[in-house]
């Protein structure tokens, strides 16, 4: 084996170092001002900072504006069917624990048509990072109320205002057994969005990040009260969670010390209606991952299959009398 010189070694490291554009593919077709753009920027930065190998990374999505995400990443991507991103991602993860798996899903995709999978994905707690792009409206199908639309939202299917209270994705997630990571970000504070995306990626287990995002096309003003009043954002700080920078603290003064280990407090914070909590609500690295529980260390070799099959066939074999005697 040839020894590399220090220079060669350095050159190779430079070669392997990937820049933001190495993770970018195509020009996003999202609307100007759409929160999806902010999420894409944060995730591409994560990939660069963490040095993710593009060929070992898979972004899985369902259907909707958010679910175009994989097309804009130069990694492997799986743009699936409406609501089913999570079980597809689980299959990938179970078959290939060497791959980094991300899910991009929307409020219709995750909280409506895919709601069953959402609950169970939290239970399985597989090592997958889930971004819920929550703009509180169906965008791609042109403005229908979604489960997270605030009551009274006027849409094409609710022209006189939506009838039901909005579903709270944080409370739902925090109510499921085996939950291991829940955070909330908003698209208009990119610094915290990135910190949360990074913390979610670094968590082992299913990290669920709800990103409150604007829809400039269908609900252009619905988030204005929160955008215009920094005090309606509640930043969650803790030595075991995120720490707000000095610059951020000057604008967002409404802050709370919250230990992400405290699930009861997390549930209370999640239920806030007057403020948008931003930060890590809950984190428990001790919850076992389903793939670790299920995958054996045994290598799937031809010999193993042969021996296992023959052992089973032995149980059901009727031997000829002569062979039995012998």
């Amino acid at each position: 084996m040839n020894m590399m010189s220090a220079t060669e070694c350095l050159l190779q490291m430079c070669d392997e170092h990937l820049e933001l554009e190495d993770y970018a593919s195509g020009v996003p077709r999202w609307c100007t001002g759409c929160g999806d753009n902010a999420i894409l920027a944060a995730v591409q930065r994560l990939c660069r900072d963490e040095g993710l190998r593009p060929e070992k990374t898979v972004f899985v999505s369902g259907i909707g504006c958010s679910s175009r995400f994989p097309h804009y990443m130069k990694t492997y991507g799986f743009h699936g069917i409406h609501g089913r991103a999570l079980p597809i991602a689980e299959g990938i993860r179970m078959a290939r624990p060497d791959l980094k798996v991300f899910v991009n899903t929307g409020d219709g995709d995750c909280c409506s048509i895919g709601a069953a999978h959402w609950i169970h994905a939290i239970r399985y707690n597989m090592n997958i990072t889930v971004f819920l792009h929550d703009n509180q409206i169906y965008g791609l199908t042109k403005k229908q109320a979604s489960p997270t639309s605030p009551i009274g939202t006027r849409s094409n299917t609710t022209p006189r205002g939506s009838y039901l209270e909005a579903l709270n994705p944080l409370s739902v997630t925090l109510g499921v057994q085996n939950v291991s990571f829940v955070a909330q970000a908003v698209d208009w504070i990119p610094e915290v969005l990135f910190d949360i995306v990074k913390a979610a990626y670094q968590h082992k287990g299913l990290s669920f990040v709800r990103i409150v995002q604007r829809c400039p096309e269908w609900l252009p003003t619905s988030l204005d009260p929160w955008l215009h009043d920094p005090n309606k954002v509640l930043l969650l700080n803790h030595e075991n969670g995120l720490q707000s920078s000095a610059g951020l603290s000057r604008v967002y003064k409404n802050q709370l010390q919250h230990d992400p280990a405290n699930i009861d407090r997390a549930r209370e914070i999640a239920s806030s209606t007057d403020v948008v909590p931003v930060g890590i609500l809950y984190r428990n690295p001790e919850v076992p991952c389903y793939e670790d529980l299920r995958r054996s260390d045994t290598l799937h070799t031809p010999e193993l299959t042969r021996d296992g099959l023959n052992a089973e066939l032995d149980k059901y074999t009727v031997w000829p009398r002569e062979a039995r005697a012998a």
Partner: protein
Amino acid sequence: MNETTLQKPLKKPRKSNGSVAGKKAAVTLKEHIVEIISDSGEGAQKCGQSLGSIAAQMGNGIWTTEIIPAEIRPPARSVAGASGNRIRIGAGYITNGGDETDLVVAFNEQVLLGRVRAKELKPGCIILLESMWRSHADAKIVASYIETHSRLVAAGYRVYEIPMEQECKTVVADARRGKNMFVLGMLCHIYSLELKLAVDQIVLAFGKKDRSVVDANIRLLEAGHAWAAANLDFCYRIPAQRSTEPQIVVNGNTALALGVMASGMEICAMYPITPATSASHYLSEVFEKVGGIVHQAEDEIAACAFAIGASYAGKCTVTITSGPGYSLKQEAIGLAVMAEIPLVVVNVQRGGPSTGQPTKMEQGDLMTAIFGSHGDAPKVVMAPGTIEECFYSIITARKIAETFNMVVVVLTDAGLATSQQPFPRPTFNESWLAPPVDQSPVPPGARPYDWDENTGLARRFIPGQPGGMHALTGLAHDRDSHVAYDAEINEQTLRFRSLKLAALQKTLKAPRVFGDAKGDLLVIGWGSTKGAIEEAVEAMRAEGQKVSSLHLQFLQPLPPGIKEILQGFGKLMTIENNWSDQPEDRIIDENNRRYSSLAILLRSRYLLDIDCWSEVRGQPIKPSTIRRVMQRKLKQEGIQP
């Protein structure tokens, strides 16, 4: 019979015609169909399975069928609650469950009534009936028993009342738990089977438990054997042919599961559904020993999506389901077709539509299998016709799925799922397994969907392959997997996906005709009706009729050579276990008659006048029924007077 026994009448069978029980020499039979039925949980199924295994070891041909009530705990002594096993034992190779039953052992008269009403018993059939109900504390039960008994006798059945409970109590305290082994002992005597083989079965079944359990069961077995020898006035022998090679005795679902293991697949994703689930039960038991995983998903859609995810990541995966679950998977199946992800889907068909008849047999899903999912979604459809084919078809399905990047649907049914038939023990072959996951760098310039102009085939890029990164999508897409909205690309890619079926079709062999290649009538079937159709054809041919049959394992694509075969016969008809309109119905005519599934396919493919006959009785079609259908057809067509 002597004085002593006459004083203890309940120890002797009360045979209805008053004849005296006594020892007889064994009568030689070509075959016999035996049923053991009881309330759920009384062990009739275990007894029947053991009888089948013993007969198979003796060298007899067997076909066993489970009799399953739809409910877990139907009320005791209920007509709908019959649980048990039906065993056809023959001197030669047995390919199906046969016609009506020759001998039935019933633990109470109510479960027996269910079988009588279903017309499952041969006229004059021997009935061995537990007699404890005649002296039961509840007067209603006694009355019901006496009434049923006398009606059965009046109907001409040979009813033997047998004090099973009482006899078992001389051996064990709780007779309800061991009656099945007493019955097994009786049957070993009746069919001149070696008792030693039955003892082996008990050791195999209870060997892990307390030695006292094994001993108690052996004592019950011996008691039943001795009792039958002393008290029954008949005894049979079905000559056996010693097989020279080891045979496997499993049901269709176990064969499927063994096939999954043998195919090298590593993941099975499923959701519980009758009658498919027992395949996953068995797989859950054994799959991990070879590094496999059974994932019970939160629903059928998730099971299919999970399988697609795992397949996409390089490990071709199977999802096993039944009718309603198969319907739920349709959108996901369409995704696998569109994105060209290999996938094996097993549909163990049951009675439909909707919840239908979950435990009953039907071949109702052929059209859904071929045309299911919206848009043009070409997929491969196979249907095993025997238990052995259940095993091998999974291996073939995995290979086709990975070679052509296609969805392969394997259609079995409740009949195959719960029937046992011995087949030669498979010898493991490394070529059954999938190659290791390709992780080699993709050559510069290679594209994720570089379809071949002639075959539509394209190499698939698997995550982990450097340079192969692309966003796979269920949207129409071009060679770079970019979303395509233009007409040109959409039409081209539909063409490529369709061409793959033609490419597969070119590799298939023409099916073989059973019987002569030319004749008056050809019967065409698919799936589990194979044995019954061929038995009926053989019997008709023995009578000098010019009939043959053709059984199709590939339904999509249809293999080459079929048209040439069809042209060799005067008349053509399919025989199927699904719905077709009856020409006898007053408003049914040629302009509105709905044909059976396979008949529709063949008529449209070959432009030939192919008739059909079908029934949907929730059970296998009997060979005698098929014979009657063929005879009637020959008569109608003026071929036979």
